């Protein structure tokens, strides 16, 4: 099994978003973090889905991160293949951190260990949907 490492670094400062379908209030859309880990469970549904990701912290302790996703319908149109996101699959999960809850992000992009990338079509990063 590949070594899993926790990386939580701000990537870019983005414009303050207007609210969309779902209130972005709980996530800081001005920041991005990325975590590397293995999918534990994944549910894709509307209005939002979620993935549990097992991540090893700097001390080697495994933590479960909560990863909220956009609506399943939208992700399908952006080319996401849900069967790819199955338990045990490893990758890098990039998203906005929850403002108050640790280990919780709103997902924008997955880069799997085999190089496959599921992203946000159109790059409209200032909208959470």
């Amino acid at each position, binding site marked *: 099994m590949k070594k899993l490492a926790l990386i939580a670094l701000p990537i870019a400062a983005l414009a303050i978003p207007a*609210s969309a*379908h779902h209130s972005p209030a709980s996530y800081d859309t001005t920041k991005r973090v990325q975590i590397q880990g293995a999918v534990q469970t994944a549910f894709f*549904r*509307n*209005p939002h889905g979620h993935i549990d990701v097992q991540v090893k912290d700097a001390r080697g302790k495994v933590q479960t991160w909560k990863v909220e996703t956009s609506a399943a*319908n939208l992700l399908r*149109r952006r080319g996401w293949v849900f069967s790819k996101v199955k338990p045990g699959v490893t990758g890098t999960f990039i998203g906005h951190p929850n403002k108050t809850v640790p280990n919780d992000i709103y997902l924008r992009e997955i880069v799997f260990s085999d190089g496959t990338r599921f992203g946000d079509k159109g790059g409209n990063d200032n909208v959470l949907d």
Partner: protein
Amino acid sequence: MPNAGPVDFSGVWETAKLELVVLPEVAGKMTPEAQARADLFRKLADPVRDDPAKVCLIKGMPWTMLGRARNYPTEIIQYPDRIFMVFELYDQFRQVHLDGTPKPDDFGPSPSGWSTARWEGQELVVETTGLPVLNTFGVMQRTEEAKVTERWHLGQHPEFGQVLEVDITVDDPEIFAQPARAHQVFKRSAPGVVPGGYNCSSSLWDDHIDRRKAELKIKE
């Protein structure tokens, strides 16, 4: 299917850009009572827990037409006597009666209400009543007296090409001190895009089952 009107709005559309959407609760002037309710909600509500999307709330008209989320198709199917609208978002559905069929006396309030329309040149004027009360404690409020008037017309946008612009006026005297304005711009969806199912309530059921399993100490 030929349509009898001067303009054919048929096709699959979606919100062009959320920044172009004008909401009545933002653009309109509320009555002091309605404003007080909205202010109290903003003050007391938890923006995360009290998000209506989390409980799959269908707010109905005029907000049905004012979706700001991107990439959700809405199909318009236009017949000589009626327009049908199928919204992927929240599996919503509207009928617009072009033949002037009046609202039946026993019509129960519903989120889409009862819509009739008339042509004014190239513009379709749609009037909707028969709407239920929404949010006695909240920002988006409506009484059963609400009347929503839409003016639909096709236009050209430099970024999106052909667009369907909808100018909306909300008459609801207990909520708005004067008729409130709203606005939406739809662009054509990409070829091949059709409205799918949204099935929001199944997530509520899943969450309910998870809670019940925890209460009953059921482990899988």
